[in-house]
């Protein structure tokens, strides 16, 4: 056992940090917040710079243009980017790219991976439907094959970023006559495809998600991923990768640090209160415990394993902790805690505590509800019977 990060990892973290220091300008952050990472001159410049560093593909296999680096590098990269709130491609990069590498055809890899690397291709996830949420396998959006094309009809919901993404990673039913898990296929659908309608649903965290309607949307057979009826394992693989991203400690640690920094600067007398310090120590221990699970998870991936129970543990811990930090943080900040970032200087921690409280529920049910996560821990981790 060795809990020390080797020099190469520490050096890499230093490299990422200096890069962030150089690029973390108010203009970039403003554009990111305003467009929810969609697009803009600052974001494009930043993504070009990221692309030049090769960090987006460093853990990809060499034959895919990567360096085949240990997954710990990606863990460190994501942790730092999350801590500093930088736009780095997130889901497309952590979840979709590995799925295309693993399940995509040669042509799909050639067509999509370079664009993902350059930050030009971004994906929205077309999984959930109004009547297929946690029970995702009962989805009903239908794809019928006509010649060399698939014609898609149906409705998806919670297709976040569909309005700004270039593509949708779509799960549709290609065969209604087989058991439900076996009749699903994954398609790559251009977000501007004729027949695709995107309607925003405004959410309480200030952003929006979307409903998407498919009305005779045509997709060439070449954009079906991994074979007809082979969609379910692909979705599970992508979801597992998504959970690794959802479990990142970076943004949670920053939320905590901002809370403490704010109290130290503006409310020093409150920070002297032993009860306040005790509550902060509780949160700090929660963070250490959550990060332990995240590192454990990254360790298994770095060895070439697939953490299933471990990924779920880290996801549950991170997402429940986000709620706890935001809630306790606001309590410790008093009425100021409820001020949003529009209030400028008056809002503590750039209004992030207040905003985190509004967005926190998403993470607990998104990417697989925490209840399903616990089912997975019990089944895959502890071997409890179905």
């Amino acid at each position, binding site marked *: *056992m*060795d*809990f*020390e*990060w*080797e020099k190469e*990892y*520490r050096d890499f*973290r230093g490299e990422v940090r200096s890069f962030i220091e150089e690029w973390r300008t108010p203009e970039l952050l403003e554009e990111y917040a305003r467009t929810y990472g969609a697009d803009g001159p600052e974001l494009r410049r930043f993504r070009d710079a990221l692309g030049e560093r090769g960090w987006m593909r460093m853990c990809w296999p060499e034959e895919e243009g990567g360096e085949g680096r240990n997954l*710990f590098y990606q863990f*460190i990269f994501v*942790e*730092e980017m999350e*801590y500093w709130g930088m736009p780095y491609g997130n889901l497309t990069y952590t979840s979709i790219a590995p799925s295309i590498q693993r399940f995509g055809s040669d042509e799909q890899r050639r067509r999509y991976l370079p664009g993902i690397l350059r930050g030009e291709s971004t994906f929205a996830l077309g999984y959930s439907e109004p009547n297929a949420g946690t029970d995702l396998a009962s989805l009903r959006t239908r794809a019928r094959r006509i010649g060399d094309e698939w014609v898609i009809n149906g409705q998806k919901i919670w297709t976040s970023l569909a309005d700004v993404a270039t593509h949708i990673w779509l799960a549709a039913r290609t065969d209604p006559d087989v058991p439900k898990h076996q009749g699903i296929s994954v398609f790559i659908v251009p977000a501007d495809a004729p027949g695709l309608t995107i309607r925003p649903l405004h959410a309480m965290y200030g952003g929006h998600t979307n409903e998407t309607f498919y009305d005779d949307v045509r997709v060439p057979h070449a954009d079906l991923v991994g074979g007809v009826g082979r969609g379910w394992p692909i979705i599970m693989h992508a979801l597992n990768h998504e959970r690794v991203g959802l479990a990142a*400690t*970076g943004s949670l*640690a920053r939320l905590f*640090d901002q809370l*403490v920094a704010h*109290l*130290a600067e503006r409310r020093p007398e409150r*920070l002297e209160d*032993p009860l306040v*310090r*005790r509550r*902060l*120590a*509780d949160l*700090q*221990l929660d*963070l*250490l*415990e*959550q*990060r*332990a*699970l995240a*590192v*454990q998870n990254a*360790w298994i991936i770095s060895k070439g394993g697939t953490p299933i*129970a*471990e990924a*779920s*543990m880290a996801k*549950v*811990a991170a997402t429940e902790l986000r709620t706890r930090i935001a809630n306790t943080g606001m309590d410790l900040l008093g009425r100021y805690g409820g001020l949003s970032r529009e209030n400028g200087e008056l809002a503590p921690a750039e209004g992030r505590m207040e905003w985190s409280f509004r967005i926190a529920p998403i993470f607990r049910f998104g990417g697989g509800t925490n*209840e399903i*996560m*616990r*089912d997975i*821990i*019990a*089944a895959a*981790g*502890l*071997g*409890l*019977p*179905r």
Partner: protein
Amino acid sequence: MNLDLDPTQTLLRETTREYLASTVPFDRVRACEREERWDSELWRGLIEQGWLGLPFPESIGGGGGRLTDAGLLLEEFARRAAVVPLAEALVCGLACTRSGSPSQASAALEGLLSGDVVPVPAVLEESDTWGVVEARVEGEQLIGEKLFVDYGQFASHHLVAARENDELGLYRVDARDDAVGSAPLRTIGRTPSARVVYRDAAVEPVGGPEALRDLILTARAFAAVQCLGSAQEALDQTVAYAKVREQFGRPIGTFQAVQHHAANMASRVASTRYLVYEALHALDHGAATPQQVAFAKASASRMVPEVTMLAHQIHGGNGMIEENDLYFFTLRGKDRSLAWGSAEECLEEASAAVDAPREWIC
């Protein structure tokens, strides 16, 4: 970064587990509890196995292992609810061998490994506060009273925290001396503990305030790993039970509510496991801060009752009776969660540095 046990550690864990499973039936543990004694027979076996020398340098006759290895050993002993002062003797041995000359260190270790010396620490007093030490040494004689001296009534020597001219230090006392009187305390852990009175007992100085601080830090990390052992065993027994116990015509482990309790138990154990071994590893490399050890112990201390109470929820009435083995871990776990710093104490201690600059990630 390597979170797997290395092959010698795996071997150590397996040998210890097999040895304990074959030589210490749980009924023997029950007998020790009933008769309010320690398992001196297991102590002899432990010495024969050479485990006691594990975390000491080879240069003075030890096994050349680390605290991390001692942690693995302690975890296995906790999983068997063994009634021996392994953690206590190890922290005393470490304190004695770390101070003094190499020849003094060898002599101290020799006594320990021969079985002639069974030392335990005596630190806390009536105030139950680490900094408050009223026991005093005058003219090489100790006067004072100590509480919560675990295994104190069976030990050959006590390593006592006392003041001499206001300076804190550690002193070795022969516990069989008439000047030492002990009375048993009955604790929730059902392992021996004592109140001890020293009336002009002869002492040998062992070390100063740093030696005392080191001893507390190591003992705290060891108690954390004992909490972990109790929790791990409670979890494993509970999962096994949920697979075979049937209600409504099916194993209760198929019910989602039961599965979620078990999943929560497993996650809590996994977090603590990482933090506890990380702290031991840091202690091995001289890199541990008191805050890190306090957080690791706080994690273990607050985790173990959560886990054992869920274990009871899943076991129902069967877990309450003493013919079932679960109660060992509930009681021992809670006892160790209080020992060497409860969750409250450790979190309060850690909170002193809550606004210090920190590196989450390094």
